[in-house]
């Protein structure tokens, strides 16, 4: 497929003019832990640890990270779908369409905004579509209440929406098992966008799909998002998908956001060693050089390593990394990195420290934990 000329320049200069407005989602210092106590053993799993980010209007914000890095927990907390043992410890989640924090809402208010303003595309579309009812029924279940239309007008709207997304209207009469995986995922996307929500959360929507279908489904997500002008938080561990769909990318590691930048910057000039590894290890057709794998495995979140959570696997680990966790700092416009090695200031402090003597590094840097 040839790229359309003239659509590429947006990626180059990063933030678009729309960024001046209030963000579609702003998350401030959000922490959510799984708190369990079984048989007198108390455990605290820090799945989301002090995350701040904002999603601009009309953009797709990609969130990358491996499993057990807290991606899904983060999605649950921003969707206010929190059930024990998951507990929100602190922080705020504000949406552009809401005047209050989402945790200030009553359950009734919450269910009114869900699907209408905030919708969700899940990984397993089978979990969304009722397997024993026709797809038509799923549309009624999810959207009828929010659309506030008569039954006939509702289906006219549904069919129009399907047509916009290039889906045949007869999928409404199919049972989920009659549709292929890709088709089901398309129906789920249509379902998630029917109410024209301001904000869409997509959790690994293409992971279960084949390469050929995946590309079409991604294109459809992109299309739908542009048509209804909503913002999207797109979560997947697949960096090649992010390269092709996200405007900005946040990289999560062990419950923390370690880097955030425009997609092009992440891929061409990664600054966090974990990001650099992720990008460098992507196999490409036509490239035979041996790709080094990262040693070790992601930390156990109930007992994370002291200091930077990446330091046991990090090739650049310094003394400072073992003592204190680097904060996510802005080091260039639109770029935030949580790494001592990436920030020139941290490097400077380290060198002055070394010159001064054996002063403990963690204290002198004074980085907030």
């Amino acid at each position, binding site marked *: 497929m040839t790229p359309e000329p003239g659509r590429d320049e947006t990626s180059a200069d990063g933030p678009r003019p729309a960024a001046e407005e209030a963000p579609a989602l702003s998350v401030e210092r959000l922490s959510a832990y799984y708190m369990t106590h079984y048989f007198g053993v108390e455990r605290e799993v820090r799945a989301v640890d002090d995350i701040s980010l904002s999603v601009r209007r009309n953009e797709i914000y990609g969130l990358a990270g491996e499993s057990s890095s807290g991606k899904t927990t983060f999605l649950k907390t921003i969707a206010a779908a929190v059930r024990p043992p998951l507990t929100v410890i602190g922080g705020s989640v504000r949406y552009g369409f809401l005047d209050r924090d989402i945790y200030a809402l009553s359950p009734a208010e919450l269910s009114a905004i869900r699907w209408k303003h905030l919708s969700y595309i899940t990984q397993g579309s089978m979990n969304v579509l009722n397997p024993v009812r026709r797809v038509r029924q799923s549309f009624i279940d999810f959207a009828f209440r929010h659309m506030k239309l008569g039954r006939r007008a509702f289906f006219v709207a549904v069919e129009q929406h399907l047509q916009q997304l290039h889906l045949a209207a007869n999928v409404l009469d199919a049972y989920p098992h009659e549709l292929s995986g890709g088709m089901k995922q398309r129906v789920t996307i249509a379902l998630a966008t029917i109410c024209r929500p301001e904000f869409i959360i997509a959790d690994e929507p293409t992971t279960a799909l084949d390469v050929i279908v995946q590309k079409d489904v991604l294109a459809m997500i992109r299309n739908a998002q542009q048509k209804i002008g909503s913002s999207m938080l797109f979560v997947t561990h697949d960096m090649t998908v992010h390269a092709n769909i996200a405007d900005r990318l946040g990289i999560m590691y062990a419950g923390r956001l370690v880097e955030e930048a425009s997609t092009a910057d992440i891929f061409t000039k990664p600054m966090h060693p974990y990001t650099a590894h992720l990008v460098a290890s992507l196999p490409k057709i036509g490239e*035979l050089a041996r790709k080094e794998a990262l040693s070790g495995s992601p930390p156990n979140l109930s007992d994370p390593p002291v200091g930077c959570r990446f330091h046991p696997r990090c090739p650049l680990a310094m003394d400072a990394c073992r003592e204190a966790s680097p904060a996510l700092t802005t080091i260039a416009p639109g770029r935030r990195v949580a790494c001592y090695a990436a920030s020139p200031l941290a490097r400077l402090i380290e060198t002055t420290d070394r010159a001064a003597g054996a002063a403990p590094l963690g204290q002198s840097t004074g980085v907030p934990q």
Partner: protein
Amino acid sequence: MSGELLEVDHVTKSFAIGGLFGRGHFKAVDDVSFTLQAERPEILAIIGESGSGKTTLARMILNTLAPTSGAIRFRGAELHKARGRRQRLDFIRQIQPILQNPYEAFNPLKRVDRYLYASAVRLAGARSQKARDAAVDAALQKVGLSLAEAKGRFPHELSGGQLQRTAIARALISSPALIVADEPVSMVDASLRMSIVNLFKRLHDELQVSILYITHDLATAYYISDRVIIMQKGKVVETGPAREVLMHPQHPYSILLKESVLSPDDVGRGRLTVEPGEAAGQGAK
């Protein structure tokens, strides 16, 4: 040993579909032939989208499904003609599977070492506890783990990458000549995926194991395999040396597959453009 390790000879598998009336047949694998040479172990990638018959082919090679027609010969002996426990166990020893999802391959309520010990006893013939421990530990060492790490652990206590390594270690216990890996890395995390892929490459280089690498990921197939077979709807549409086929695909389906691969080089917006109708036409099977 000389000659063919595995010979897949015009194999067809058809499944009956429909009810009593209007009974039809659906060919999941249609006239597929290829051979693996014994003296020259190789990594053969079978590429195709879901529904292309990859997994059915794998199950026939693992002898859990009998082909409708054609024959699969392993070292000259036909697989599905194996009779008796002893003969079957012999095949199982030589051909070992690695499944897609390590979390499904292991029972979540049982400790992972149970599977390792069971394989050591049944397939490697380790009788004493000492011999079992030695066999299991040796296999785990080959994948970069150790018995101390895996012993007594439940699947949820290991990361996806460790669990997949454990599954590979289990397959290695009986020193197989052929490993059939069905989408072994698609459920493994990004930072661990390359370690599994590199592990396959190392097993092939060091242990001289032939590997049938079934995948839909062209990029990793290009990275590790020597030869590829591209399947579409049960038929082989293109086959040849991996680099050649994947760099210059000839068949329209192979070309489509290659074009669909999302490349990290296409960073930025606007590449994902689809002409109206194309998106709708693809999904309906």
